[in-house]
C-alpha cells in the first residue's frame, strides 16, 4: 500500500492504494491548490485482462477478493483520518468500469468500488465528508483533466459535490449506458 506523501502534495491530498494510476494521480496533484480541509485519493489495484475461462478459483480469490479487501482497508484508513469537510476521491480505470471482453475480474473490482463509493457518499454525508469517483484512461491519461477535476472536488465549492462519477476520457463513452 502506498502511504501518504511527504512533500507538498501531502498538503493537497494523501494518496492511498497501489493501483497503476498512482503516478498519474501524484502528477495531477502537482497542479492542485492546497485546500482548506484534509483529502485523500484512493487508487485501488485492478486486475489485468483475463478471459472467464482463465479465471480459476485462485485467480478470482486473489485478483478480485484480495483487491476489494485492500480497497476497503484503504478507504477505512482514509475515512478514519477525515473529519467534517474532508474529501475522499476514488480514481478508477475507465474501460473496466464500462465493460470489456476479458474484463470480468477488472469490472468486478472497479464496479464494486464504484458501488462502495456510492454507499460511502450516502453514509458520510451526515459527517460532512464528500465521496466522488473519477474515471481515467490508464493508457492515455489526461493529467490536466484529472488535476482540474481534483482541484474542483477539493476546493471549498466541492463541499456540495458528493456521490458523483466523472469520466475524464474526452467523451469516449458517449452513447454507452453507464453502470
Amino acid at each position, binding site marked *: 500500500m502506498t502511504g501518504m506523501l511527504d512533500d507538498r502534495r501531502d498538503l493537497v491530498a494523501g494518496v492511498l492504494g497501489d493501483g497503476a494510476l498512482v503516478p498519474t494521480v501524484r502528477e495531477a496533484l502537482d497542479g492542485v491548490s492546497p485546500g482548506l480541509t484534509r483529502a485523500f485519493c484512493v487508487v485501488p489495484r485492478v486486475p489485468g485482462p483475463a478471459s472467464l475461462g482463465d479465471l480459476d478459483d485462485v485467480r*478470482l480469490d486473489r485478483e478480485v477478493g484480495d483487491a476489494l479487501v485492500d480497497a476497503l482497508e484503504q478507504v477505512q484508513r482514509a475515512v478514519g483520518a477525515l473529519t467534517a469537510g474532508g474529501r475522499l476521491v476514488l480514481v478508477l480505470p475507465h474501460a473496466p468500469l464500462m*465493460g470489456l471482453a476479458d474484463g470480468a475480474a477488472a469490472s468486478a473490482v472497479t464496479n464494486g468500488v464504484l458501488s462502495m463509493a456510492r*454507499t460511502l457518499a450516502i453514509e458520510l454525508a451526515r459527517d460532512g465528508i464528500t465521496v466522488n469517483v473519477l474515471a481515467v484512461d490508464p493508457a492515455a491519461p489526461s493529467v490536466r483533466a484529472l488535476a482540474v477535476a481534483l482541484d474542483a472536488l477539493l476546493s471549498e465549492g466541492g463541499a456540495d459535490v458528493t456521490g458523483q462519477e466523472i469520466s475524464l476520457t474526452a467523451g469516449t463513452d458517449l452513447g454507452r449506458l453507464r453502470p
Partner: protein
Amino acid sequence: MSTHAPVALVTGGAGGIGRAIVARLAESGHRVVVADLDREAVHDTATAVPGAVGVVLDVTDPASRTAAIRTCADLGGPQVLVNCAGVLRDARVAKLDPADFRRLQEVNLLGPLALTRLAAREMAHRGGGAVVNLASRAWLGTFGSTAYSTAKGGLVGATRSLAIELGPQGITVNAVAPGFVETAMTDGLPPEIRRRTLDAIPVGRAGRPDDVADAVAYLAGASYVTGQVLPVCGGRSVADPYAA
C-alpha cells in the same frame, strides 16, 4: 416434463425469491435444478415443483459448485444459470470487519463468478444459454451497506463485461436488481423503517418474489438482450429513495 426441456440451475433456489424463480421457470417449460445450502428446503422445493431436481450447493465451495454443474450436465446441460444465492450482513464502513466483508464477497460475488465460469463452458458446448445474476438496488448505494453494495456492484460490472465476452458464444448475461421485496429476511424490519421504506416506493407497495421471478424469466429467454441491469424496485431507483 419433457426430457428435452431446457435445464435451468437456480442457486439460492429454496429461499423466498429463489423459490419463486424456480416455480416461474418450471411454468415456462424448464427443467429446474434447485440448488441451495438448506438440504431440507431444497427437498421441499424440488418436491413441490414438477420436474425439479434438488442439489445441495455451497456457492463458496469449489467441489460443491462442480457437483451442481455435473447434476445439470446429467440432465442435458445447463441452458440457464440464475445466480440468486446471497447473504446480507453488513455495517457502516468504519465498523466493518474486513473478514466479514470478504466473506460477503465470497458468497455474493466470487462464488457466482466461479459458477458462471463452469456453466458458461457447458453452455458454449451446447450452442448458448443465459446467465441471470441477482444484483440489488443496493448497487446504487445504500446506507450501512458497504459490503453488500460492493458485492452487488461487482456483480453488475462483471455482468457487463461477460455479456461482451460471451455474446459471440450465444450466451447472454444480464442482471436483475430487486429493491424491497417481501421475504422472511425483510419480515423482521422495525415498523418505522418498514413504513419509511414503503413510503419511498412510487408504486406504493413492497415487491413480491413473483415480481422478481417474472423479470428473471424474461431475461432467461431474451436472446437479444444482454449486459443489462433491470431494476425491479417499484420505481424507487428513479424516485428519491430517502423521501419519506
